């Protein structure tokens, strides 16, 4: 059957991100230093967005970079850190100086704020934050009582971010987004984030035909019903890892961490890696083929990925 009549959603990085206004709420997929949509993040910085409310469930270089670039007003997640490298230093400076407001979650309340909306409800009950200061300072967590048992719960308010930005493996031009069979299953929460936001922008490693999608239907984790824009961005998670496609770019992550030690050195990093390159393709040229393929061919990627 021909695909005529079904909208095509493939756009450039620039066009996708231009839709985000200052002050918007933007949810970001990925976990710690894994499969964040870094090409989209860098474009947000290039376009000079301000006053954003960032939401996620466990974040790292993605939120730290946006905070360091002055794009964020509020950061809402369970974690912002650079994993084994150390603290997220831009985030630290911004919060300690009062430039950025934080909204803190446990991992499950961070998941549930998206999952509630995905389920079409305005809250979900959860017990993890009870008795802690998560309840004290996060007004999206409110104590309630079960009407059936009297058990105390924290009601986790569902969020509906204006935008979600995600990175995945394949998509067709209509916006059926897929993950390879070989993936770490780390980012199952991406599918809740993609179902909670009003506008969903997904960058992918590879654009495939709709025939490919229909031949691999189990790989579709976000069908086009949810997707606003698709962007072709190979190595779009760089320097984060991307399941079996490529590992972490350790050298780039270390360089980032080093550069983040002061506002001045970080500004130089942003100029070099973000502002002085016109787009994602020039960024990839700058990182260089050797750097990209070193990450792509590290042993842990090819041996350790889960095969369905």
């Amino acid at each position, binding site marked *: 059957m021909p695909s005529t009549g079904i909208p095509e959603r493939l756009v450039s990085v620039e066009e996708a991100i231009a839709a985000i206004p200052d002050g918007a709420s933007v949810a970001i997929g990925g976990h710690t230093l894994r499969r964040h949509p870094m090409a989209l993040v860098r474009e947000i910085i290039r376009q000079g967005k301000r006053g954003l409310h960032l939401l996620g469930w466990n974040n790292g270089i993605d939120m730290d970079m946006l905070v360091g670039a002055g794009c964020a007003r509020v950061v809402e997640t369970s974690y*912002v850190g650079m994993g084994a490298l150390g603290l997220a230093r831009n985030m630290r400076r911004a919060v*300690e100086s009062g430039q950025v407001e934080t909204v*803190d979650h446990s*991992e499950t309340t961070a998941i549930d704020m998206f999952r509630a909306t995905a389920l079409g409800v305005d809250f979900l009950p959860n017990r993890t934050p009870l008795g*802690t200061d998560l309840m004290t300072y996060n007004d999206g967590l409110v104590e309630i009582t079960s009407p059936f048992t009297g058990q105390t719960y924290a009601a986790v308010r569902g969020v509906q971010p204006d935008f979600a930005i995600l990175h995945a493996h394949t998509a067709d031009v209509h916006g059926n987004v897929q993950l390879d069979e070989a993936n*770490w*299953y780390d*980012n*199952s929460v991406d599918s809740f984030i993609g179902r909670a936001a009003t506008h969903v922008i997904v960058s992918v490693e590879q654009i495939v035909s709709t025939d490919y999608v229909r031949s691999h239907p189990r790989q579709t984790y976000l069908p086009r019903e949810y997707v606003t824009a698709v962007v072709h961005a190979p190595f779009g998670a760089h320097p984060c890892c991307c399941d079996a496609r490529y590992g972490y770019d350790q050298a780039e992550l270390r360089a980032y961490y080093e550069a983040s030690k002061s506002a001045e050195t970080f500004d130089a990093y942003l100029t070099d890696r973000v502002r002085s390159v016109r787009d994602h393709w020039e960024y990839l040229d700058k990182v260089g083929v050797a750097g990209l393929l070193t990450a792509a061919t590290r042993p842990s990627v090819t041996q350790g990925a889960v095969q369905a």
Partner: protein
Amino acid sequence: MTAGFSKDEIMAVATSRYITDGDTVFIGTGLPMLAAYLAKATHAPNAALMFESGVLDPRPRSIAKAVGDPRLVSTARRVSGMLDSLLMLHGGRVDLGVLGCAQVDRFGNINTTAIGSYQKPSTRLPGSGGANDIASLARHHVVVTRHNRRTFVDKVDYLTSPGHLTGPGARARAGLPGGGPVGVVTDLCVFGFDPRTCEMVLESLHPGVSLDDVRAATGFEVIEPPGLGETVAPTATELDILRNKIDPEGVYL
């Protein structure tokens, strides 16, 4: 410090002793992973390790490689995902978790969010991650940390992950299902928790460490309990396993 083993080694060994054979244990990278694989190699061969990545009960051919990259685990009973590992916690199927901290108080309440005021902290830390979930939901958990006055405080500035909250019955009143912390392992000593008060109580001093050393490093009162003993030092077998089989590259130790 007594010669023969390092601080990290005695902390790993002391932590491994909390793992009972047959337990399902939630494990993060670093020292908890060393402790867990040590327990499996010694007294708890049937303990099932659960990694936050969703790997359950791996039987790696090379522990050293598995420790180097926890994803290189084949022959796990299940590989599912991060959401599923949290579901195990929610379903009450995790017997023990191991947590670090930036601040901890006498009830084992942990702060990994903010030192100073929440809105404008003197130090903003990464936040809960999965720590709050583990502390709230695991049947029990152990805290493992270096011991100093910055860490062992009278009251945490922000309560990220629940210990025994304000004392006996407090967790149950708050609505929390898990049993809370059963021990605190430091580079100076091991604490248990007094069941009557839910406060940390000293269980053993590491070889070469005095009660004064512990008091100097603790921001709340440390009572000398009757029968205070010395932490059993790591055995030659345990050290051999740690140094030669689990972490031969010295990545963590």
